[in-house]
Each structure stands twice: as C-alpha cells, then as structure tokens.
C-alpha cells in the first residue's frame, strides 16, 4: 500500500475560503453540521480547540462533564432522543481511552456520534510521547469509521465525511483524532458537506421482488408476528409500521431497543421480547407461521437458543445492514432496505386482514402473566417496596409521556417491562453492550436534546456509582433530570443469577452503600429517600413535579427477582414465570 496517510483534500474550489487555525476550523465545521451541544473534557492535546471554543460559546453550548465516559454517554443520550449526531471532545491518551466504552456502546446500539480527540504533535506520533495513545488503533473495532488528522487542510473534509458516515444508513460512532499541530496551524478554510463516498453506499436499493415475496407470505399467514427493532425508530418508520400492522392485522412485539416505536396501548401491541420480556411474544415466537422482523438483529438476548428459535416460521427480515441478514437467523425473505421505505412498499401489496383468534392467544398469555406475575408485582400489600410497583406508578403518573433512561440490571428490565411508553423515541438504554454507568450521563444528554420533556433516569445503586461524578455536571449545568435510585443494596441482576444458577452463592454482589442523600446534597441536588410503601405516592409526585434536577432514592426489596425469564441458553418457549 502506498504511504498516503491523509485524505485527498477535495480539490474543488469552494465558495469563499478564509484563513483560520485548524482549531477554529473544527468549530466552524461543527456549526456547518448544525451542532448545538458538545459534551467534553479538556486536556493538553486538545487545548487549542478549547481555546478557540472560548470565543464560540455564544454559538456552541459546551457541557463540561466530570469524566470522558460521561461525555460520550451524554452524547449518546442526546443522539438517541433527537436522531441527531451526538458530539464529544476529549484529550489524547487517557481522555481518549475513557471514551472507548461509550464508543463501543454506540457502535453496538447504532448510535450516531462524532468524537473528536486531541492528539500529540504529529512529529511525536509513535514515540510514546506524554499522553500519546494510538486511539485510532484502539477504536478501530468499535467505530464505524475513524481517522487521524495531521494537517489542518484535512479537517473540513474529515469532519464532513465523519458526520455523513455517522448518521447515514445504519448509524454509528466516528472518531476523528487531530494532532495538536494540525489544530494550531492556519490554513485556507472552506466547507463542503459530504453527500457521497464512492466506497460507501448506506442506502440499499429496495428490491421489489423481495417485497412481493414478503407480501405473498404475509397475505397467506394465519399467525403472523412482527418484531420491532430500533431500526424503526432510526428510519422514523413508526407511522408506516403501525399502518402496515393495522392493515394486515399483525401483532407487534418490540425488542428492548425498539421500545417506544409503538405506543404500548396500541391494540396490536403485544409486548416486549427477550430474556425478561413478556410471556406472550416469547412463546408465540415459536408458534407463529410468519415472523416479520423489522430493523432488528436477532440478538441472543432476544432469541435465546437459536436452534430452538422460530423453526416453524417463515422469516421475513427487513434490515438496512446486509451483514445482519442471515447472521443469526436465516431469512426466508430478506428485504435489505431502509425500514420506512420497505414498509411503504409492503403496505401497498398486503391485503387487509385480521387475525382475531391469534391476537386473542396473546391476550390469553397476558392474562396468565398478569395473574402469575404482574398482579402482585405491581400491587403488593406486604414486604418491602418492589421495583415493579415503583415503575408502574411512574408509568401511570407520567402517562408514559416521559423519556425513560435506564442503566443496566434488574431495574432496567423492570422499567422496560412496566413503563408503558406513549411517546416515540423515549426509551434510552444500553442494550447491546449493557454498560453500567450509562444512565446518568445519557439522561443528561437526553435532557439537553429534549429540554421540554420530562427525563427520568432509573438507576441501580451499583450502576449509579459507576458514573456518580456526573452529578457535578448536572449541578453545574443545572440539567433538570429526575434521578431515581432503586436501591436493593445488591448488584441485583448478578445476585439473581447467583440465586438461580449458582446455589445462592452471593460472591461479591452485596454492596455497602454510601449515604446517597448526603452525596446529592454535596452536589446541590435536592433529594429524598423513602423506605415505606405508604410514602411512595407523595414522594413520586413531589419528585416528578419539582423544578430542576432532583434525586429520589427508593429502598427496595433486597432479593426480588425479575420474571418472566428465559434462562441463558434456553428456548424462548421455555420462558419461566417464576
């Protein structure tokens, strides 16, 4: 290979060029891409950019987080509720490596990000200079694209390309590493948006034959079931999806990442899929005759044992990323397309239909689940407070209109089960990577993205302490998130597995927690703590109706388990109800 290490800078003479430093160019490029908020943390190698930022604070809102992981998760939260590309800044070395968890999270959950990292002077590259780390190498497996800039002339093109790649097709994170000399040097700046890359074709051309094949299956189906993934939200295909489901009378189930694409009270919505999903959609997956997967990737937490997954069904897979097709589940009909476009076509050729008795089978399952689990879970009369009742109450009180941001663990599964979403793009969680510590910073980003909406952060006592420092950001920037800590004094999800699969050997899962109220107080964030069921309603009302950020700690039953559960490696039809 040749030693070209730089992008060919577009030769096209663009309108007017002006002489600026690389640093200022970075900010100008961000403005060209309509960036409003940047989450970041400064340091030596990115100081020139921060210096330029000092004169741009009227145009760019920079939120100083307390850790780079906080910055990247905040950018993710922002992206997930707005559909826009989240942006974060970090310095070289430790600043850059601190971003990696969030970048990996964004990659697996298809979240558009542009992360800009400072790098040591280009003449020091490869010399183990102070705070030099090969972040391009480190981030390669977890970015959609990354690039190192060593000359200011490369900045506009790299950023334009980065934004285009991050938020087209199946979105993902982009990292642009800029050496300090490239930030400092002046050059003739001009900007041109990127609209095409010859080696990158993010939008497949819809094959009409696949649509008619799909329609043939759907029109003949007696027991169709649709699986709704995040692809529907990304493609903004919610309306098309619902119209299609209504026309063909198809029950819709959602993956964790697809939650909020369909309002939970829709008559055809049959619940949440996967390990801790609802009973109906899990068992019926193995009884349906046609399975229509839209913008989802058959993750193992959804499918359980693949050898016993939907073997009886014809599978239609509507998916924009060709690499997902036939990866886990073989498709009988693969529709490689943007979900919106595919559904628009599909609706034209599907017959109006109803599957009343099939739908009733789901409702029968719902009844079983209600009797066996939900009834007591949401309305216990004795014992400690349960996460389930708290989430049910929050769902009722907000009417499902708030943005729900969750961390990882039991509370995440409970919240996803008991919160009845009634507003689209209102579910923010770490699905594919399961990153504890995601919630608090992601909630900040979500609130920055949708300041008019109520943003609720539901966190376990374990995960809260992974990014607890972001309380500082919330305080400094007065970000009005409502923080709920469901405190069971355990790493609850791990404890549950220890109880069920490791003979209750609670190896390092019990926590001795600090006084969360005192911590909150230290950060100037009002808080309450409740331990009695009788106090729950009043506390929730006060918390939800408060202005600005507020923390509520609810001490819950220590050893509550989340059910139903598809044990790892089991079939979805072997879902356990207790």
């Amino acid at each position: 290979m040749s030693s070209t290490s730089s992008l060919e800078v577009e030769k096209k003479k663009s309108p007017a060029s002006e002489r600026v430093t690389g640093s200022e160019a970075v900010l100008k490029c961000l403005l060209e891409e309509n960036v409003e908020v940047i989450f970041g943390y400064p340091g030596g190698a990115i100081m020139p950019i921060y210096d330029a930022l000092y004169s741009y604070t009227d145009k760019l809102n920079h939120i100083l987080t307390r850790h780079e992981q906080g910055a990247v998760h905040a950018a993710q939260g922002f992206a997930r509720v707005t559909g826009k590309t989240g942006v974060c800044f970090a310095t070289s070395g430790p600043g850059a490596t601190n971003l990696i968890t969030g970048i990996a999270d964004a990659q697996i959950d298809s979240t558009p990000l542009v992360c800009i990292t400072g790098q040591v002077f280009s003449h020091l590259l490869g010399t183990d200079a102070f705070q030099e780390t090969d972040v391009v190498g480190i981030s390669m497996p977890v970015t959609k694209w990354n690039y190192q800039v060593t000359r200011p002339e490369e900045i506009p093109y790299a950023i334009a390309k980065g934004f285009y790649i991050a938020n087209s097709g199946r979105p993902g994170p982009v990292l642009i590493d800029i050496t300090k000399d490239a930030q400092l040097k002046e050059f003739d700046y001009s900007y041109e948006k990127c609209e095409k890359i010859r080696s990158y074709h993010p939008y497949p051309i819809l094959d009409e034959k696949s649509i008619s094949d799909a329609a043939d299956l759907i029109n003949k189906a007696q027991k169709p079931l649709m699986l709704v993934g995040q692809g529907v939200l990304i493609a903004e295909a919610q309306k098309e999806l619902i119209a299609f489901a209504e026309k063909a009378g198809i029950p819709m189930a959602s993956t964790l990442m697809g939650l909020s694409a369909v309002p939970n009270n829709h008559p055809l919505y049959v619940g949440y899929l996967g390990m801790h999903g609802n009973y109906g959609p899990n068992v019926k997956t193995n009884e349906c005759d046609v399975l229509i997967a839209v913008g989802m990737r058959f993750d193992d937490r959804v499918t359980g044992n693949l050898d016993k997954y939907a073997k009886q069904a014809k599978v239609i897979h509507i998916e924009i990323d060709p690499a997902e097709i036939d990866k886990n589940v073989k498709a009988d009909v693969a529709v490689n397309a943007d979900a919106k476009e595919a559904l628009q076509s599909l609706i034209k050729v599907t017959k109006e239909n109803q599957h009343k008795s099939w739908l009733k089978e789901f409702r029968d399952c719902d009844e079983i689940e209600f009797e066996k689990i939900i009834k007591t879970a949401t309305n216990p009369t004795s014992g400690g407070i349960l996460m389930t009742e708290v989430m049910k109450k929050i769902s009722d009180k907000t009417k499902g209109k708030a943005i729900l941001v969750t961390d990882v663990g039991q509370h995440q599964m409970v919240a996803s089960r008991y919160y009845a979403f009634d507003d689209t793009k209102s579910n923010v969680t770490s699905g594919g990577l399961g990153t504890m510590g995601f919630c608090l910073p992601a909630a900040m980003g979500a609130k920055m993205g949708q300041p008019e909406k109520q943003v609720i952060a539901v966190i376990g006592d374990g995960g809260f302490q992974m990014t607890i420092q972001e309380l500082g950001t919330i305080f400094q920037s007065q970000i009005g998130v409502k923080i709920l800590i469901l405190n069971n004094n355990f790493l609850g999800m791990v404890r549950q597995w220890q109880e069920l699969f490791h003979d209750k050997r609670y190896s390092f899962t019990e926590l001795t927690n600090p006084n969360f109220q005192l911590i909150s107080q230290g950060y100037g964030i009002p808080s309450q703590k409740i331990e009695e069921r009788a106090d729950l309603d009043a506390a929730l009302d006060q918390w939800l109706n408060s202005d600005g950020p507020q923390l509520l700690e609810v001490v819950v039953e220590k050893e509550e388990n989340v059910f139903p559960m598809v044990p790892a490696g089991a079939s979805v039809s072997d879902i356990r109800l207790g």
Partner: protein
Amino acid sequence: MSNSINNIHGDKVRDFTLSVLTEDRAGLLNQITIIFTRRKINIDSLNVSTTEVPGVSRFTIVIQSVSKDQVEKVVKQIRKLVDVLGAFVYEDDDVYYQEIALYKVPTDVFLNGNKIETLVRNSGARILVIEKDHIIIEKTGHKSDTHDLYDKLMPHGLLEFVRSGRIAVSKSKRKTEAFIQQLEEAKSNRLSIKDF
C-alpha cells in the same frame, strides 16, 4: 487443493480466496484483519497490491478450512468497512492463481553432479541468482507445486525458503475499472446488494 472436510458443526469446510478492492488508505490492513481475528479465523496468506485503477488497492486473502456460511458472514463485514469498494469470494475453481517461492541452496550442491540442476529444470523452476556460496531458485505455481520442490531440495540442504501469498485473478470477465465506475455512478448513495 480443494479439501472437503467437515468442521465441528458438521459444515463442509474448504479454502476460499477473497479479493477485496479498497481505497488506498493507511490502516485498512488492520481494519480488515481484525474482522478475521475477532472470529478466530486464520489468514493463510494475504497479499496487497495496486490494481490497474490508480488509487485502488487489492487485498488477496486466502482462508482455509472455513464453511461457506462463515466466509459469507466475514465478507459482509468486510464490505461494511467504509473504505472498502467491493469484496468478492472465490473458490479455487473460480480463479487463476499463483504463488511464488524462493529457495536458497548452497552452491556446492550443484557441483556434486547435475542431479539438482535436473531437478530444478524438471520442476519448471528457474535459477535466479548464482553467487559464490549460494544459489537462488525461483518457482511459481500452486502451493502443492512449490511444496514439492521444497521437499525435494530439503535433503540437499535448503538454506532459506520463502513463499509469497497467493495472488489471483477471477475467471469472470469483470473489469475492476468497470466495477469502480459502477460505484461512482450509483445514484447518490444507493446501491443494490446484487451489484456486489
């Protein structure tokens, strides 16, 4: 060397040659190889070269003992890389392919009768360099051919042996240039998967 054995899942495994056209950019080698590493697939040989189209590189990658299903999944991941223009999978019958091997033997083995010289001539190899103390023999062919000569020279004291990665051209009529053209002309940012 088309072998037809089964892997632990009972799938038929064999050798594949991947031909990957890319933009000429640093870092791509790493991006491509980590796709294999992550799936614990060994790369048997890898060759990078320029193509007849300026600015376009070709990676020729040989992987052994994988199933068709595995190789297809890997190729889809390679195609996903932003700077990859196209990736094609071939079985041995679909391509013309060659490898080159160099053998260093002590000059004096040639002096002990003409046995070696006949051997070299009969195996279609050629003598590249003759030095006072060693001779370099060059042979082009399939792996089995260059290996044959290796086996024959070994008893006579082989000082050094090296074999290149496979290079291959497909038997189809497709032209790289026409392919790139097609990518460039693809309506805006759309492309049908069938074009690959």
